């Protein structure tokens, strides 16, 4: 970037060009680009991130569009075709019970694995995203408030400590038993459980984000541009909106990617302990937990959801890595 056309002028022998050229600012020569274009340029260079984004996109797209392409009802019982194997098993085992009506096989009640996988993905992704967003909103809110308003710092951080020392699992189970019924009454069995899990996971996982954001805000607050903003009369909430939030975006992104993964995994752990979604409502975690018993005979039933979870988590993490780099103007600027 040091080579710009003027250099040669200055260094040219005799230096006939106006001497002031030597002191001229080295301005950026490329035409201005939009910030998001820049972000994208930087992002594209990160191979892992591109791959992560691709997988995530593929999976998200799959679970969203899937039900229209593969219209079998995931809850429909087809007891005559139970325990079918995925179509590919026919390659090495010609006796395997396979069929195109259930390309990935069916479970012990004859429910189609493929449509369950799609429906489960919808649920898991929805839980993951919603819980992640919730915890992000709480975490960022608390973190920014605590970092920015000195008076709130003490109380909010005590609150964070309190939540950190609350044992999550009992709380979770208590909440599930407590609020399941009223929520179900209002939002239906799946909707109620969804809200419950999302809320519980959300409100029990915002603390790290809050701490990180608070730390960053405290540091940013000392940066001169925040002081400058104050000196030009920017109101506190505008400072937060214009100056602080955009600058804590990258740590938030990182928490977000981790949050999505933990939410999906927490949901599956809840399912494993038997307090998750209703039994006829598939999620990846539940499929995995249910299939562990038949792992030897029907490995695909654990592998399919297991791989789906892992790929999502991996994808999200790599995506997060890339986003962090892309969103940091210092890295992007280089």
């Amino acid at each position, binding site marked *: 970037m040091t080579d710009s056309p003027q250099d040669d002028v200055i260094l040219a022998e005799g230096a006939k060009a106006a001497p002031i050229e030597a002191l001229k600012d080295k301005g950026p020569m490329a035409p201005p680009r939009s910030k998001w274009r820049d972000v994208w340029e930087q992002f594209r260079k990160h191979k892992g991130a591109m791959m992560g984004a691709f997988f995530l996109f593929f999976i998200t797209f799959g679970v969203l569009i899937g039900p229209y392409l593969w219209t079998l009802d995931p*809850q429909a*019982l087809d*007891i005559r075709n139970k*325990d079918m194997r995925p179509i590919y098993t026919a390659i090495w085992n010609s006796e395997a019970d396979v069929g195109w009506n259930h390309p990935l096989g069916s479970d*012990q*009640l004859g429910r189609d694995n493929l449509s369950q996988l799609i429906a489960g993905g919808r649920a898991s992704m929805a839980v993951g995203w919603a819980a992640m967003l919730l915890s992000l909103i709480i975490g960022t809110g608390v973190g920014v408030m605590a970092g920015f308003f000195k008076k709130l710092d003490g109380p909010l951080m005590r609150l964070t400590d309190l939540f950190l020392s609350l044992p999550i699992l009992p709380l979770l189970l208590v909440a*599930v*038993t407590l609020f*399941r*019924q009223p929520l*179900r009454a209002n939002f239906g*069995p799946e909707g109620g459980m969804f809200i419950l899990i999302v809320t519980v996971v959300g409100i029990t996982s915002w603390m790290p984000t809050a701490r990180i954001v608070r730390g960053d805000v405290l540091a940013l607050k000392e940066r001169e541009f925040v002081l400058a903003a104050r000196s030009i009369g920017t109101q506190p909430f505008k400072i937060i909106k214009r100056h602080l939030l955009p600058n804590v975006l990258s740590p938030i992104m990182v928490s977000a990617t981790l949050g999505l993964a933990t939410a999906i995994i927490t949901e599956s752990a809840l399912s494993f302990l*038997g*307090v998750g979604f*209703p*039994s*006829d409502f598939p999620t990846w975690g539940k499929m995995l937990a*249910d299939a*562990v*018993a*038949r792992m*030897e*005979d029907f490995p695909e039933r654990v592998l399919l959801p297991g791989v789906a979870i892992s790929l999502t988590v991996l994808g999200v993490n790599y995506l997060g890595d890339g986003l962090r780099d892309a969103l940091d103007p210092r890295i992007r600027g280089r």
Partner: protein
Amino acid sequence: ERGEDGHVNIIYWQAPSIMTPYLSSGTKDIEASSLVLEPLGRYTETGELVPYLAEEIPTVENGGVSEDLKSITWKLKEGLLWSDGSPVTSADVKFTADYCMDPEGGCAQLAKFDHIASIDTPDDLTVVVNFDEAMPNPYGPFMGGQSPILQKAQFESCTGAAASTCTEANFNPIGTGPFVVDEFKPNDVISLSANPNYRDPAKPAFATATLKGGGDAEAAARAVLQTGEFDYAWNLQLAPDVLASMAEGGQGTPVSAFGTLVERLEMNMTDPSPDLPEGERSTVAHPHPILSDFNVRKALSMAIDRGLLTEIGYGQAGRPTCNLVPAPALYASDNEECLTQDLEGAKALLEEAGWTDSDGDGVREKDGMKLSLLYQTSTNAVRQDFQALIKDWWNQIGVETELRNVDSSVFFGGDPGSPDTFQKFYADVEMYANNFDGTDPQSYLQMYRCGNEPKPSSQWQGENINRFCNEEYDALLDELAKTGELSKRGEIAKQLNDIITKETMTIVPLVDRGRVSAHSNTLGGVVLNTWDSELWNAADWYRIDG
């Protein structure tokens, strides 16, 4: 020879938390304590009574039970010793009753000691139990794993409120059984060794035993059937295909037996509509708008393929049944009409009864009332499979079904404040399993007496879950209570069973659930017993060489 076979490993996936059945009614605790504590008599695998500490089982015939059925006289075997070497006397037996009947103690087996007026101990080996009314079945106290004999000397200071502070005694009770506790780790593992003072000098064959608890049924099954780490695994509630594939491991064998546990649908005869004011929902004040119609209940039952349910949910540990009282043979009705699924018949029946699908949405209506039901049960994998299947069938006959499952601790928790207990029955149909202790169904059948329903005035306590009310039924119950003769009792019980099942379809039995346990191929002498503790004959277990 006592102790020659070394060590036996038992796994219970629910870990025992205490060693006396009086402070816990959990099966795991009752069974664990049956290795140490013994009653006067037990039930065999066929439901017959055999004497354990008693010389013989008292009956009217042998004079042990008085003619008026108001007293029973037990005679202890001679020369019985506690594991600490002191003799077993009638005082211990009487003490056991006093211990449980102490109002402060919170005894879990209090029901066994119902109607006891007094207990006399004319001599060291004789115990006379006097009841305050005629007891056609006087074998409540001191019979079976639930009411074994405690040593008076050990528990003397543990009565009433002090019961729960006697940790040492509760964990390490002195007993007469084949084993004594070496170390009790609550909710984890119990180490036992052979009782040196066991009455049969050749038994038990094992010198030591461990009873490991915790985990899940699947892991327990694996440890016996696949890895061979354990010799006996209790109550393997697993999907049949899973169990079958594990059994291919070749290390052990699953065994099964049937008792009286019946998985059933209960029809709500009262209106659970949330539109009713609280306190009137699911009370006899409002009959159910749909289920009051016998034809609907009948059609619902006809739509169910019990054979398939059994195959999917229980495999060899279940058999389809139409009876509330499936056993013992004396009391079991021969009703089998429901066993074949008849979807067409069900549809026709509904059609006939005026439930027709007039608007073509697949759901039948009558008088503007949609045939739509809320079907609830506790959270449990097999029950949810059942729900899914039954919902499917009911949909086929034009009955809209909403499923709901409630955490079992809430569902069975009995908290009057919770709307989700099975007693409150804020649903149209619910599914659970129940059974009766011992072999006599009288008290079981009595649950469905008119007036015994859970209601606000009784804090929603009461066992007549369906809010069933039938004069004929109540009259038969009165007769049963007065009848001592067994064959006569059997007749009446069958009639009662038929009234509540096939004649009114109030209770729709689905599956007679047996027990599946597994033992390793090297463990001999296992006789699975559903009428008593599974470990009832642990003294007879031995090692098969090979």
